[in-house]
């Protein structure tokens, strides 16, 4: 929270809470999530499966699942979104916020051509004629590195390879030059080589358009040379937040530490990985205090109380016993 730029945040989320109704019972999925994304900044939202990353993103774009209740405040470029009418809010999607989904195969329409989908968005938000929109769409495809862009406008998504599909998805997200891009695990389904290509493209788009970006991932390493800050989530909570470099090399939360230790290190003789014991508690069965306490090596009675997200060194940590920086040198990280 200290070394980020001082511009106004593009996205300012405060105390976001999402509660789902499962079998008629309200079940919290996201609680107390607050973070900011500034112009030109990329923030990684990291966490294991089911910790509420996607839910957070969907709450931000105003498309939570049926029957979900969303609490807290979401401000985009200073405008409060939660009080906007449904229609006005809808208009922001595609124009001010671009969204990139995890699975381009299912997130793009199977029976509309790539061009049609692009033109739909373009013509919804920009005052463009049919022809102009098509030209624009071709430019966009060209920009995201799709060869023979004009011809590709008439192709269907199933005719494209995985990487191409994700490029189309990116083209769609940036088509109206939004202020913010939310990318939900955009490379998880891709091969490493393609992942690298897509990340390169995202990087380019970001600098070219001055985008703020919220990058959702479960793999910290993916974002290490890409994001400025990382927000680590665990069981619906933010447990740690700070500059990526510092989180990767000197995590303060025991959970973050565990996550990093679990990544097989390069060029070392086989030795066992550091483990987080146990598993993520299922929805609706979160412990009352610190949600990580049952798996935490440092847990004690204090941890029966829910800790707050407190600034700690250059980050913010939700932990009663944060790991101190000095001890880090001896940690297992390479």
């Amino acid at each position: 929270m200290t070394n980020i730029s001082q511009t106004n945040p593009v996205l300012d989320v405060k105390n976001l809470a999402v509660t789902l109704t499962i079998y008629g019972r309200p079940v919290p999925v996201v609680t107390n999530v607050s973070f900011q994304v500034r112009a030109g900044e990329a923030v990684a939202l990291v966490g294991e499966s089911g910790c509420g990353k996607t839910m957070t993103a969907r709450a931000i774009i105003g498309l939570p699942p049926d029957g979900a209740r969303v609490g807290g405040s979401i401000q985009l470029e200073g405008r409060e979104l939660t009080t906007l009418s449904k229609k006005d809010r809808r208009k922001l999607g595609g124009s001010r916020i671009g969204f990139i989904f995890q699975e381009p195969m299912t997130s793009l329409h199977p029976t509309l051509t790539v061009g049609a989908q692009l033109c739909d968005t373009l013509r919804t938000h920009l005052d463009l004629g049919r022809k102009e929109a098509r030209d624009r769409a071709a430019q966009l495809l060209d920009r995201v590195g799709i060869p023979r862009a004009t011809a590709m406008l008439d192709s269907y998504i199933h005719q494209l390879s995985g990487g191409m599909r994700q490029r189309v998805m990116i083209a769609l997200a940036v088509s109206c030059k939004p202020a913010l891009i939310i990318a939900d695990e955009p490379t998880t389904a891709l091969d490493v080589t393609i992942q690298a290509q897509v990340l390169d493209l995202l990087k380019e788009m970001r600098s070219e358009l001055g985008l703020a970006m919220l990058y959702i991932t479960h793999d910290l390493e993916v974002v290490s040379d890409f994001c400025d800050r990382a927000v680590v989530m665990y069981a619906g909570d933010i447990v740690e937040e700070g500059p990526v470099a510092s989180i990767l090399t000197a995590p303060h939360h025991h959970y973050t530490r565990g996550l990093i230790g679990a990544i097989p290190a390069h060029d070392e003789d086989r030795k066992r990985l550091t483990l987080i014991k146990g598993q993520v508690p299922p929805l609706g069965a979160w412990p009352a205090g610190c949600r990580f306490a049952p798996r935490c090596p440092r847990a004690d009675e204090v941890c029966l109380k829910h800790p707050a997200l407190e600034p700690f060194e250059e980050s913010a940590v939700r932990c009663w016993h944060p790991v101190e920086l000095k001890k880090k040198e001896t940690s297992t990280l390479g």
Partner: protein
Amino acid sequence: MVKQTTASSPLLQVEDLGKTFGQKPPVQAVRGVNFSIAQGQTFGLVGESGSGKSTTGRLVLRLLEPSAGRVLFRGNDLGKLGKKELRQERRHMQMIFQDPYGSLNRWMSIRETLEEPLLVHGLLDPAGRKQRVETLLNEVGLPKAALDKYPHEFSGGQRQRIAIARALVTEPELIVADEPVSALDVSVQAQVLNLLLNLQESHKMTLLFISHDLRVVEFMCDQIAVMYLGQIMELGPRKAIYRTPQHPYTRALLDSIPGRGKKELPRLKGEIPSPSAIPPGCPFNTRCPLAFDRCFREQPALYELSPGHVSACHLAEAEGQPQGRPNNIAMSPGTGA
């Protein structure tokens, strides 16, 4: 009759293995693959999606009929075994699948699941089976109470443990693990990887480990083969592959590992071609940043760079010895187009 292997010969030997699916157009999933795995070793197969890793794994276990080549397991040609003999042989070779949700029969309790291989192979008496199943469950770190539960009552990591226990229950000599941790979260992945290492040591088993995650392969394997379009591009001991990779493809792969940007080569362009339309010459020629005219004409042979380290690249010709067997694909039908 199934012969016993002698200690010195490799446990598994794969010779010119090829597999073509379908006819119009034929999908050449695996072409002329050769490797062998010594007892107790972990052999890694890496490559992009569609490079033929899983198919190779299945061919090894003869869950698929190869279109070409043969698999020698414990010195026996699996292709020569009858249906029944093959089924019996299966107790010595088992598989762990990527998807722990799909690979367990969800209508069978954990006890049934684990006892089934023993049952169908007629091993042990009921008491012995019970005993064995309980021991194994303990070894993979699950409580005894788990026995009478059903797969859905477990998390992904736990299910993968169960799948591992099932693979081990007949004390097989070879286990083919097809992306056993790809579906798991990092923290759980670490647990399972540690478990696999422990078990391999205690059971002295041989592992064919398939993964697309170079970090995991590096962590697990002694020998690594990099596959591309059904062929082995480079094969060698772990250190050789990771420290001195020769093949541009291997190097590109290593460059793509997130967060380790040392970048020797420019980014790979484009994507892996379809295995039904494999480019002539070196299959990698469409994407290789170092490709030159020969690559488009001529299929490179496998060159030995150092003992056990081979690469199928024309650029390796200068450094290495051509290996006895050229890495050619003559044995897989449908090539040459």
